[in-house]
């Protein structure tokens, strides 16, 4: 494996983690808000579904996604009918897989943070003339800020370390779908321990720094309960 391949894998990994985090923040925020505030009786069904990737072997998730997204699969056919290309073995497929795989890591901190904001600040905002959307952005989001930070970093870091799902639906195409965790696996298979060390130590250090930053920042911005 040529050395440039490592750089390409880094690029793919960062792009994947970045895009996944952005998508998760935009989809996960309304979902977490709803989960935190809904009194629907069967809410627990949705909560269990969101938490599933925490316990499911990534290969299981990847396997079903592969079947769904493959050219002959139900979603694959639908995409083709809509004029798109099948997602299996593409970067787009990786993004879909990563979003599902990292969902609970973003949604759960957000849900906890929204729940911790409580009803009172939103009622206060309502009596001061703020519409529901206005209350959400001017009160709920700033007060849930530690949850956003935690969710974003956990989602990003978790996607960085993804292996099973990527292997199942992305394959291992250098420069397109090969991510760092798989490059490390390849190096070890090829007995290139030196290059495996560089990438592994890099990931280890980076993950630690990220988490450290989250904990440090959340300590400084611990929300004050009125």
């Amino acid at each position, binding site marked *: 494996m040529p050395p440039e391949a490592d750089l390409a894998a880094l690029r793919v990994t960062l792009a994947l983690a970045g895009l996944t985090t952005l998508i998760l923040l935009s989809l996960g925020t309304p979902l977490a808000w709803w989960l935190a505030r809904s009194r629907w009786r069967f809410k627990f069904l949705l909560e269990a579904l969101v938490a599933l990737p925490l316990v499911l072997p990534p290969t299981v998730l990847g396997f079903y996604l592969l079947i769904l997204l493959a050219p002959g699969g139900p979603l694959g056919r639908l995409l083709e009918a809509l004029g798109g290309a099948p997602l299996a073995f593409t970067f787009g497929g990786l993004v879909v897989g990563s979003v599902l795989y990292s969902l609970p890591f973003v949604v759960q901190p957000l849900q906890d943070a929204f729940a911790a904001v409580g009803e*009172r600040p939103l*009622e*206060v905002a309502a*009596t*001061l003339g703020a519409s529901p959307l206005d209350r959400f952005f*001017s009160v709920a989001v700033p*007060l849930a800020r530690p949850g956003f930070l935690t969710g974003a970093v956990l989602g990003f870091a978790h996607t960085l370390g993804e292996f099973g799902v990527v292997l199942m639906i992305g394959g291992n195409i250098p420069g397109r779908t090969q991510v760092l965790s798989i490059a490390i696996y390849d190096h070890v298979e090829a007995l290139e321990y030196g290059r495996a060390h560089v990438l592994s130590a890099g990931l280890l250090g980076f993950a630690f720094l990220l988490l450290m930053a989250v904990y440090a920042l959340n300590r400084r911005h611990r929300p004050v*309960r*009125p």
Partner: protein
Amino acid sequence: MSIEVRFRIARRAFTLEVEARLPARGVTALSGPSGCGKTTLLRAIAGLERDPGGYCRVGEAVWQDGDRFVPTHRRPLGYVFQEPSLFPHLRVRENLDYGYKRTPRGERRVDFAEAVALLGLEALLERHPQGLSGGERQRVAIARALLAGPRLLLMDEPLAALDRTSKREILPFLERLHEALAIPVLYVSHSPTEVARLADHLLLLEAGRIRAAGPVNALLTRLDLAREQGAAAEALIEARVGGHDTAYHLTWLDFPGGRFSITRNDLAVGRRVRLRVLARDVSLTLARQTGTSILNIFPATVADLTGDGPARVLVRLDLAGSPLLASITRKSAALLDIRPGRRVFAQVKAVALVD
């Protein structure tokens, strides 16, 4: 102008079932034992509790009727919660601005500088809520509510969560509010002191229902209600500072039934004050006593009386329109032949200026 409400809200502990018309001026106290539905009623008026069959009108504006339900953020009201709920992520100035900025210019009732001055917040504007005392926070919360241009100010035991010092710090601000602004206030409180100081009108709730409603003094001196107050039974008298006696160092307070003399203070002549007279501090005589150290003696007519335990009788007197309560022994009542219509003299041993 009036406020009209009709709500039926079932809670686990009680069912609030209220139909009332309240004056849309001055301070109306909602009082009653805890868990009687005071807060629920206030929240329903604010639109924070929903009763699909409810009705709520404030002045000309119907806030709830049938299918019509104006959401809280579209109701021109101010709400002060029991615990000072400032936004922790905003400075005092930004907290005050929150409602102010969201109120169209033409609907503002108080301008920013006026609210800041009224509640003495000049020195706090750049501070964060975390650094303020409980009393300071509640003052900010009150100013914030005023700045949202309310047609109705709802206050849910704003002093209950505060210590005595903070309470004493805030009460004068609330009284100033009462004097300076023409915004009607609904004030939830179970403190007789606060009611005596602030309220013009009283709504007594019990187990979710209205027990009594009316002008505060009429209710305080209603014998069935006063009897439940025991030793705290009292009457309020609205008086005006009539002048000062420099020789004896006294201040005269005039009311329709006569003139009170109290130890001199430096209140301005003409100023309106409120006096509290405990029923236990009022005794009765048939003829005007001379040779007594009591200064405050007024001719009165017995309006009504009721037994108050085996030994005492509670008497409601009429002093040229001002009601007053006297608590005397059953024996004295019999000896003096106290009955409605009897002309007597009320001797007031002690009087407290509400301040």
